[in-house]
């Protein structure tokens, strides 16, 4: 079972040692509907927690993706703008948008685990 963490803004994070793969939750995917474009950040960019790291454009709206924790962008999913169906895949299997080198891995503890996120979704719905 993959170890996912979630933010209140529906980012989905896969923790891989000091690095995290950042995508969006299936709840967020469904809320966005049909995607038309993903705007990626520059590799090497340093981000604080909550900074915009990407923008997902759907037919309906533009949605910012926020950095779940502070860190440095070490890779972006270059394939995604040309293959938006990738977003439906698990984060570590193609559904990722950005890979971050985490500045302080302790910050990850503040994110929700799957059970907490499920409970959070029931609350916001």
């Amino acid at each position, binding site marked *: 079972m993959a170890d996912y963490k979630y933010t209140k803004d529906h980012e989905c994070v896969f923790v891989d040692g000091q690095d995290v793969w950042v995508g969006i939750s299936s709840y967020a995917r469904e809320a966005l509907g049909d995607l038309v474009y993903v705007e990626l950040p520059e590799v090497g960019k340093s981000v604080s927690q909550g900074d915009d790291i990407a*923008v997902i454009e759907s*037919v309906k709206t*533009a949605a910012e993706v926020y950095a779940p924790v502070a860190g440095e962008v070490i890779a972006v999913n270059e394939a995604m703008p040309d293959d938006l169906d990738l977003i439906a895949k698990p984060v570590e299997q193609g559904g990722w948008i950005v890979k971050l080198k985490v500045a302080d891995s302790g910050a990850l503890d503040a994110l929700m685990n799957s059970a907490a996120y499920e409970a959070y979704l029931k609350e916001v719905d």
Partner: protein
Amino acid sequence: MAERTPLYDSHLALGAKTGPFAGYDMPLYYKDGVLQEHLWTRAQAGLFDVSHMGQAIVEGAGAVSFLERITPSSFQNKPNGRAQYTVLTNEAGGIVDDLIITRLEEQRFFLVFNAGCKDKDIGWMKAVLPDGASFQVLDTRALIALQGPKAAEALMSVFAVDTSALPYMAIMQDVDIAGAHCYVSRLGYTGEDGFEISVPGEKAALIWSALLRSEMVKPVGLAARDSLRLEMGYPLYGHDIDDTTSPVEAGLSWVMGKDNTGFIGADKVLAQKAAGPERVRVGVRLLDKGVAREGSEIRNDLDVKIGMLTSGGFSPSLEASIGMGYVPVAYAAPGTKIFVTVRGRNIAAEIAAMPFVPARTKSMKKLDTGIEKKGAVNG
């Protein structure tokens, strides 16, 4: 608390995602999503609840002069049964609202205007209503739009309403649908062939669900209604046109009647028409990836701001980002290279002719007698 149309429960039963629009809780999209609803309307027939819009009847010996006072169009020689898209102008030559006015009889007209402007419009019009005309708001009627290449076939197959003799921009009055008195107008906001059907509110749900039993018909929400009208270059009031834009700048001079010089704001509008406007509403098409929405800056090749997008979004038919906005006339020619700024980044774009997608409405051909006659059609 948001208002609801008579079809609210029908929307919920269909799994609609609803949201606030013009004081109403309206369906934004249904289960298939915006993209599919858009493409379905272009390929088959989409069913829209537009009951939030205002409907009214203007009647009396003073009706024509009243309408030629509040709009720059001419109604004196309008045939019975003909619908006219037009605007209400203010003293400054701006636009109070855009609307459809249909001549039902010599001295009887049917008006359909925007939901968000309902109270404003009614107050505006009643304030200049002469003694010889009455203004009756039809607030118990619903309005259902059936739009798409299969709209006529669906209406025939479900209710045996034969629209084969009905031209574009014309109305069939006294149509009996499910025992209800309906107005069937061949027009819409999608650029497809189709109809807007004014029905008594209490019969709306029945008529709506009957139409959905046709396999050609699917419900379509306001989100796809917006992308469909954007592809046609149709302005949306409060965005692409408002109190500060004139019909001349908006590219709507064609609604003006040659012989109408007495409308509100005529001095301003006619002077601008004669001199030519400084800025005009244009279509914009992005040449690079990205989506530009309302509020994005339009910049020239020297990176100087020349305007703003008043609407913008993804065009499902073109699979490109399109929009519209106002630019100085020097930049208005289709093909002019510009930039649109999205989140601080300039995206290459060009001025594009509108409509972005060719309209497929029927011919307006001359109205012959008969189609507007009472009892011409029975459901």
